[in-house]
């Protein structure tokens, strides 16, 4: 009864705070939509200037979606002035080719360089076959490609979005619950609570349940929006996604209210974001763990988002079932239990019983 009274009160307070509600339910949709368009933007064709180039090569470039502009003579300054991505010069005498890349965007420059090499190689191959037709069988024809996960239309965003869904839950629940309990501390209502016969575990349980309800609603809104409106791949069961996020929310909640006992003000609570929240993103699966240094890989293992990201990606993108993500779920439960116990102990500051 005390727990339900507390849950009711938390829900009431949150429902009256329209801005916080907006932050929790609308802000994730906004960010998700924005990222969707950012990652699904059409790539602009590269612009390449050429001097003394064969027509066959020029058509080859154009087929490879490169805009070609021919010059009689050009230099580095032409690249800057005409906003070219690159300039390919062929020395009329030796036939040697030089490529000047603008390289203001290294990944774009690398892609252009690769395309140019491919076109030139293909042309050389074609010439070779003209000379020695018996080699034709060795050239690569069209390769049939099959995909284990996703299909030829899947993009990076499809892999990223499950992690984002988890991260939103983690971030917003962490902040809102942490500040919620912090305000109870600073306004003295926590102390007031402690002068009633309520038990410490009842307070922690009520906080988990009260904010947990909102975390579940947030998860449902975000996931449904991502699947229906943004058309994100959802290979597994939405129920599993909700389960993962509920556990993640419990971790975020218990961590948020635990850290709030080390903060004296809302501003100090915000200072925990770069320390406790941002590093989680790096280990959530956006960057491949295999390439990381050994100590970084070890650090990832103590990040709740690492397990949540792995499970979410598993369910949403790879269609994993409950048994495949059970390890991640157990890890999240362990985190939650540890933080919850620490919370109950931390409340001893207010009353030893």
């Amino acid at each position, binding site marked *: 009864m005390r727990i339900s009274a507390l849950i009711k009160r938390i829900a*009431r307070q949150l429902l009256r705070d329209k801005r916080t509600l907006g932050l929790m339910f609308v802000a994730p949709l906004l960010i998700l939509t924005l990222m969707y368009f950012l990652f699904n933007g059409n790539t602009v064709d590269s612009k390449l200037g050429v001097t003394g180039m064969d027509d066959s090569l020029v058509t080859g470039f154009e087929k490879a979606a490169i805009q070609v502009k021919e010059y009689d003579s050009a230099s580095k300054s032409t690249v800057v002035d005409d906003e070219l991505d690159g300039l390919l010069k062929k020395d009329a005498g030796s036939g040697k080719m030089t490529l000047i890349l603008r390289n203001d965007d290294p990944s774009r420059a690398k892609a252009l360089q690769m395309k140019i090499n491919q076109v030139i190689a293909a042309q050389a191959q074609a010439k070779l076959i003209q000379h020695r037709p018996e080699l034709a069988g060795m050239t690569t024809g069209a390769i049939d490609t099959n995909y284990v996960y996703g299909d030829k239309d899947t993009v990076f965003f499809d892999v990223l979005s499950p992690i984002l869904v988890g991260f939103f839950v983690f971030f917003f629940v962490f902040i809102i619950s942490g500040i919620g309990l912090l305000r109870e501390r600073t306004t003295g209502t926590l*102390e007031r609570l402690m002068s009633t016969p309520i038990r410490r575990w009842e307070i922690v349980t009520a906080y988990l349940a009260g904010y947990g309800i909102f975390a579940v609603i947030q998860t449902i809104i975000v996931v449904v929006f991502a699947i229906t409106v943004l058309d994100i791949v959802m290979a597994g069961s939405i129920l599993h996604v909700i389960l993962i996020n509920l556990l993640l929310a419990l971790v975020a909640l218990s961590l948020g209210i635990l850290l709030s006992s080390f903060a004296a003000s809302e501003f100090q609570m915000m200072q925990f974001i770069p320390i406790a929240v941002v590093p989680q993103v790096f280990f959530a699966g956006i960057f491949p763990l295999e390439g990381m240094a050994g100590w970084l890989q070890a650090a990832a293992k103590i990040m709740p988002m690492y397990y949540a990201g792995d499970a979410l990606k598993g369910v949403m993108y790879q269609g994993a079932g409950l048994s495949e993500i059970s390890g991640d779920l157990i890890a999240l439960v362990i985190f939650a239990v540890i933080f919850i116990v620490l919370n109950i102990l931390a409340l001893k500051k207010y009353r030893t019983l």
Partner: protein
Amino acid sequence: MFIHLLAFEEGIHLNSTITVENVNKSFGKKAVLNDVSLTIEKGQLYGLIGPSGAGKTTLVKMIVGMEKADSGLIHVLNETMPNLDILQEIGYMAQSDALYVELTGEENLKFFASLFRLNKEEQKRRIAYASDLVNLRDDLKKRVSAYSGGMKRRLSLAIALIQDPKLLILDEPTVGIDPELKLSIWGELLRLKNEEGKTIIVTTHVMDEAERCDVVAMVRDGRILASGTPSELKDLYSAGSLDEVFLKAGVKQHENLSLN
């Protein structure tokens, strides 16, 4: 001999609502309470008087069980504190208005009533009673964020009374309240004591409030300088007012300390 002593102690506890025995408390190196002992009888209006920082709040928090004594014993209603069940019988009003400002006055009262496990019927009855008492009935539906300072103080008092506790502990209940309301709150405290037999502890640093208490304990630097009825104290120090008593008692304490 041993049995005899036990019976003797029982005797003390049965007649008194609160006993504090040789309590010490320090935060870090700073001693806040120094060998404090006091006994409060049932139905007494007991005043703890002293300047800010004297240790009054720490002492009442210990009686409620929110702070633990480093040494010494505290009994409330024959139970050793801290004790969760006894909290049901203690109405506590903190120094700051610890209210949920997003909620209405009624919702605040209801919330605390549920924490004390009052059933629906009792809740209704007690909310009506407590809000009438502090004259807030017409403002119950308003959010606390729209309340004035005095209204918040009154709501805090109503919450302290919500579960009909045997013991009321009020930490500076009249700070920031206008004189008229202060008078009506004191009138109500006296009525609660006289008609309902409640035991009440009040902390204050205003001497005219101390005059209304049955027993006054003067607290300074974590010690009880003197205690007794206001007239006893005035006679003892041959002083005209409690203010004077307080000054004289303070001087005496200094002399004692320097002698030691």
